[in-house]
């Protein structure tokens, strides 16, 4: 546990617990018309790739005892999935505290295209630690659209390490929606290994009450002519706290890299807190790297304008807040997923009846 990367996120009390474990891991995996050759099976049945270890610290009591379960998703060469694969992970009816270690391995062969939506939910579960690891391998010219819909219980700890290896001409598009959780830490680490590999990392974190949401991303440009763009937006209310740390590394020989990073935050209360930090480590000289971070509040003039038209101040604030967040959803090209995320966004507002009635 390198302390610097955990500066703002404290999981100490979670490391001192004595955990229950569960025997069977059975996420709901939904898909339509899977083409021949596609494999979705428990990890135990798959000829496994090399495991990467979870970088998260382990409670001492669990040392050597944690059995990871998980799934393997394989998309063969030239296969283009028309419909998304939905994975719904529900932490259901758990005794306190429980640890849920799970691993997904996703392999896309050459020229294949897939969309995966991973949903994390809770039902009658309180103090649980979801320890998720996702390994993604993209062969040349493969494209993965990877969506996360994190809606964990407000008393839980959610850690998710996502490691992506990208081959030549591959494309990794991700969207991380944080709408729940107590303490949430996501590490998204992608390596652009070969020329013309591209990643677009987008995210939206909606944080309120006493929630703590930490997004750490690392993009490694390890070859020339690789591209990345990153855009995360956050709304932080009440006494909540959010962390965004975006590291971009460009290797010395990785010339002609184009990289762009934006992080925009809206603070809705005086007690809310955001720590945003770009970390650029650029060792090549012929690159285009841009980055920017903003932290703002609701525009008083806009609220005034709306109230002069008879609109309730509360609704005016909701409209502005919704508008700020909704802009992020425009990057989602898949209609059904965009609608799902929009519904999630609306549920974030308490007292949202008027807002819901207004929007299509």
């Amino acid at each position, binding site marked *: 546990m390198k302390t610097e990367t955990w500066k703002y996120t404290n999981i100490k009390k979670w490391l001192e617990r004595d955990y229950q474990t569960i025997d069977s891991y059975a996420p709901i995996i939904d898909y339509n018309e899977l083409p021949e050759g596609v494999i979705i099976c428990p990890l135990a049945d798959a000829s496994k790739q090399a495991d990467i270890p979870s970088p998260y610290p382990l409670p001492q009591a669990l040392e050597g005892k944690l059995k990871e379960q998980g799934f393997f998703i394989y998309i063969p060469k030239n296969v283009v999935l028309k419909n998304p694969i939905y994975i719904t992970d529900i932490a259901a009816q758990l005794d306190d505290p429980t640890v849920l270690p799970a691993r997904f391995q996703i392999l896309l062969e050459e020229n294949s295209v897939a969309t995966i939506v991973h949903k994390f939910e809770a039902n009658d579960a309180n103090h649980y630690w979801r320890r998720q690891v996702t390994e993604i391998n993209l062969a040349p010219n493969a494209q993965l659209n990877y969506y996360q819909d994190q809606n964990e219980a407000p008393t839980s700890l959610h850690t998710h390490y996502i490691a992506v290896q990208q081959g030549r001409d591959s494309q990794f598009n991700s969207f991380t929606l944080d709408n729940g959780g107590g303490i949430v830490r996501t590490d998204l680490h992608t390596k652009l290994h070969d020329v013309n590999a591209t990643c677009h990392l987008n995210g939206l974190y909606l944080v309120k009450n006493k929630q703590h949401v930490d997004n750490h991303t690392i993009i490694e440009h390890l070859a020339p002519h690789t591209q990345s763009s990153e855009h995360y937006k956050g709304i932080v209310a009440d006494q909540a706290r959010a962390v965004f740390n975006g590291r971009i590394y460009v290797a010395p020989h990785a010339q002609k890299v184009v990289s762009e990073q934006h992080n925009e935050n809206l603070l809705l209360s005086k007690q809310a807190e955001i720590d945003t930090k770009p970390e650029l480590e650029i060792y090549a000289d012929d690159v285009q790297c841009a980055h920017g971070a903003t932290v703002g509040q609701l525009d008083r003039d806009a609220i005034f*304008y709306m109230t002069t038209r008879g609109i309730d101040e509360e609704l005016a604030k909701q409209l502005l807040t919704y*508008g*700020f967040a909704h802009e992020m959803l425009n990057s989602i090209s898949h209609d059904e997923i965009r609608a799902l995320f929009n519904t999630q966004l609306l549920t974030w507002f308490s007292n949202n009846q008027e807002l819901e009635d207004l929007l*299509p």
Partner: protein
Amino acid sequence: MIGEKMLTIKNLAATVGDKIILHDLNLTVKAGEVHAIMGPNGSGKSTLGNVLAGREGYTATAGTVEFLDHNLFALSTEERARKGLFLSFQYPIEIPGVTNIYFLRAAVNAVRKSRGDEPYDAMDFIKLIKEKAKFLHMDEGFLYRDVNKGFSGGEKKRNEILQLLLLEPKLAILDEIDSGLDIDALKIISDGINQLRRSDRAIILVTHYQRLLDHVIPDYVHVLSKGKIVKSGGPELAKELEQTGYAGL
């Protein structure tokens, strides 16, 4: 109806920050009337609009304002709007992320609800708004853009008048609605204002130019200078001012 009290301002003083901008300001507007307020830059015309609408930072420090039967200052900004006060902004505010048509429907329904009328559903509202937009020669595209964002000066003013037509207020204060408009747009907007002239409604036009007053002929013209009304008269006063300027006042 004609002659009923709409707005009665007595000895109003107001500050912006700690600067006194308005003082000893008196103005009475009755239903059915159109008043024009003219005056040099910085004399306090927009400040008056902001004070009446209840903008943060604009504080009335003395005097009274009655709007219909209400003590205006006892009402919140949204309550003033729901009771029929409308301020069109000299510089309309851009609202990124909020689509014009949702904003407009929220406004119209808020006002309708407070009057006890059924709110419009999305379909009925689209019909209504398309008709108004057409009247103002406004491309429907503007309905689906963010409120005022990237609109040209004239387009913003048209959007203000669109709101005026939709909200049908009792008292409309139009702050330089004519500034930056080309001849055709001025004609269209004037037609919009004239359409609203009614015996149970009053309009205050803040303007620098006679050409608006050629289209919308006022009943009274006032000159606001250094925070108070220094001269009042009929439509001829505006023409006179165009000749002589404010220097003699």
